[in-house]
Every structure is written in C-alpha cells, then in structure tokens.
C-alpha cells in the first residue's frame, strides 16, 4: 500500500500525542512510516516512565481506599492525565470498578491520555455498554486517533457496541489511523452489509477516498471484494469522480482501484477511466509503465479504454 498514506496516518497519531496540529509535522512525510511509529512509541514510553516512582506510590496508596473514594479523587483531584497514568498500575478488577463510577465525559478524557498497551486488561474488562457510551463521546470530540488505539484491546462484543456508536464517516477515519491494521479485516467482517454501503457513500460524500483505498489495501480477498462491490455500485458526479481519480494517482493506490474498477458497470467504468486519463500527465513514464503492468496482471486493462490509451498501450 501507499507509503504516503501510512506516513500520513502515523503523523496524525504523533501529532495527537504531542498535542500539535498534524500540518506542523508534515515534514515527517519524508521519513518512513515505520520510523514515525517508532518515534511515537519512544515518546509514549518516555512520558509513561517519567515520574514512574511517584505514580506507583500513588497507585499503592489507592489500595487502602474504597473504590468510590478513588473515583472521586480520580475525577476531582487527579484529573484525566494522572488517572490515565495510574490506571494501568491498579489491580485491573479494581480499576474496572472505579471506571464504573466515573462519568462518561471524564472516561473519554482519560482515554485520550492513556497508553492502551499499559492498561489492556482494564480496557478489556469495561462492559460493552460503557465502551459504547465513551465511544459516542469520543466521536463527538472527533478523537479518531484515540478510538483507533483501543480497538486491539477490545472483545468482539465491545467492538460491536463501539461500531454501533460510530457513524460511517467516523468509521472510515478511525480505520485510517487504526493502531493494529491487521485487525481491520476482522472488524469489517463484523459489519452488516448496510454499513459497507454507508461507508462507501460516506467516502463519496466527504471525499474520503484515500481512507477507502487504504481500507481496501488491508483487507482479505473476500472482504475486499465486498467493499469494492459496494464502492463500484455508487454513481458519482463528474466532480466526485475526478476527486476519486486524483486520490488514486496521488496515493499510488492502483491495486485497490483495480479491485473496484473490475466491478463497475461499463458506462461508469468508461467515465472513471476518462477521469483518470485526464490526470495521467502527472505520472512520469516509469510510473505509467508500472501502472500498465499492474493493470495487465489484474486482467482489467482491456476494459479501461481511455486509460489504456493514456498509458500508451494502444487503442
């Protein structure tokens, strides 16, 4: 998949951690996405190990306090940052009992600052209905990166509850910055068909094609086929078609494109191929060759008339 998309997703996550505007970190696009991720993990580890001794003493002190009092102190005195640091140091069953007594808005703030890797057992033990409530609050705050960090620590039951709380646009945006993208295929398998259609319609309405192309690149063949079929069934106006074509070229997402293209009705495919051909002047000859080879191996090129001509493969 496009290294550019991976790098951009990692920049979003690092910016959230450093509380910076992602645009201020755009220069990191020249760094491999794996290195941006490694940097983010280093910063997280540095923040979570700083002041560790004082925090572990606070966590130890909480053992002598009743759960209700810990919740009051957590909310009114500690605040979300400190609560997030301590959550992973408590006995998980006790931390889950404390969470049950805390308001949803506070839990959402804790979620923003927590490192899920350090509180995995606590997160896994939160009841699905509470996960759904916190998810609704995080959706309201547009905390896509925060939601994306949690998925790998949730049961299927909790994921289903969270999915119900996510609108289709947010679902795409969270998928784009998901921490464990190898979980995407399983998550999509939990979605009913109507949601797949909703997701592709949301992409068309909000120009979230890079997110759809990234999603397709992380799915198994069976799931990819279902999403591609849904995307191919949408009739786009000329402007939306041009934006889709531009996203494919900019993100170098030819493989996902061919998945969709081979399922498009003939007349839509011809329109789309025309929109793509309009943009092909932006490709250098070596890239055109590569796209041509991809298209031939996918067995789709003969159906992409105008595109085939633009790629220099004859009429």
């Amino acid at each position, binding site marked *: 998949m496009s290294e550019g998309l991976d790098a951009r997703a990692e920049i979003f996550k690092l910016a959230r951690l450093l509380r910076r505007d992602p645009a*201020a970190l755009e220069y990191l696009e020249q760094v491999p996405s794996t290195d941006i991720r490694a940097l983010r993990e*280093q*910063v997280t580890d540095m923040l979570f190990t700083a002041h560790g001794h004082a925090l572990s003493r606070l966590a130890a002190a909480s053992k002598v306090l009743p759960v209700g*009092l810990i919740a009051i102190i957590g909310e009114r005195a*500690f605040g979300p940052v*400190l609560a997030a*640091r301590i959550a992973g140091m408590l006995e998980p069953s006790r931390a889950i009992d404390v969470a049950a007594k805390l308001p949803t808005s506070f839990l959402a703030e804790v979620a923003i600052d927590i490192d899920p890797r350090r509180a995995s057992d606590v997160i896994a033990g939160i009841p699905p209905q509470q996960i759904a409530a916190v998810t609704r609050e995080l959706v309201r705050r547009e905390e896509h990166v925060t939601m994306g960090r949690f998925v790998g620590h949730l049961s299927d039951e909790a994921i289903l509850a969270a999915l119900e709380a996510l609108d289709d646009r947010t679902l795409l945006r969270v998928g784009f910055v998901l921490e464990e993208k190898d979980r995407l295929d399983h998550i999509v398998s939990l979605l009913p068909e109507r949601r797949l259609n909703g997701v592709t319609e949301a992409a068309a309405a909000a120009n979230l094609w890079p997110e759809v192309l990234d999603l397709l690149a992380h799915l198994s063949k069976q799931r990819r086929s279902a999403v591609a079929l849904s995307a191919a069934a949408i009739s786009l106006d000329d402007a939306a078609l041009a934006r889709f074509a531009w996203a494919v070229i900019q993100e170098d997402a030819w493989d996902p494109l061919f998945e969709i293209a081979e399922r498009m009705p003939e007349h839509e495919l011809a329109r789309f191929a025309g929109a793509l051909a309009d943009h092909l002047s932006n490709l250098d000859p070596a890239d055109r060759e590569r796209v041509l080879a991809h298209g031939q191996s996918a067995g789709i090129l003969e159906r992409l008339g105008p595109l085939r001509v633009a790629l220099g493969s004859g009429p």
Partner: protein
Amino acid sequence: MPRRFVEEGDGTIAEEALRALEAQLRGKAPEGLSRLHAEQLQHLAEAVREARHRQAAELEAAGDQALRHIPKALRVPLRRVLG
C-alpha cells in the same frame, strides 16, 4: 555506519539537533529521522520537550490536589504509604 544528512553544510547543525532530540527521547532516534533538516529536528525536539514539561506540570498540580479530597482519618496511613 555514520548517519547521512540530506544537505551538505547542514550536517553539523543537524547532528547537534539530532542529539538534542535524542536527549529528550532518552535514547537513540529512529534512523529515518536523519532525512530531516536541522530546523525540523529542532522543532521535533522542542515538541517532545514541551510534552514532557506539560505532563510534569499536570502531574504536580494533580498531586497537590489529591490529599485535599481524602478524609482526615485516612491521611496519616496514606502519607505513610506515599513516603
């Protein structure tokens, strides 16, 4: 292997900026960051430093507040645990 920086002439300043970032990270920075210019590395180091200071300030304020919410009877045993 020595790190290679993107622009000749920028090398020494970039090396220094990378060291400043590594001091903030408390460890060696990922290899790919050597593609960045000195001012970009300085920007990153400053962002990491700010994140650490912000957290320290938030933790300190929270610690000051915590004991005020504890019932008097529990403060003595708690102070013993906290040391």
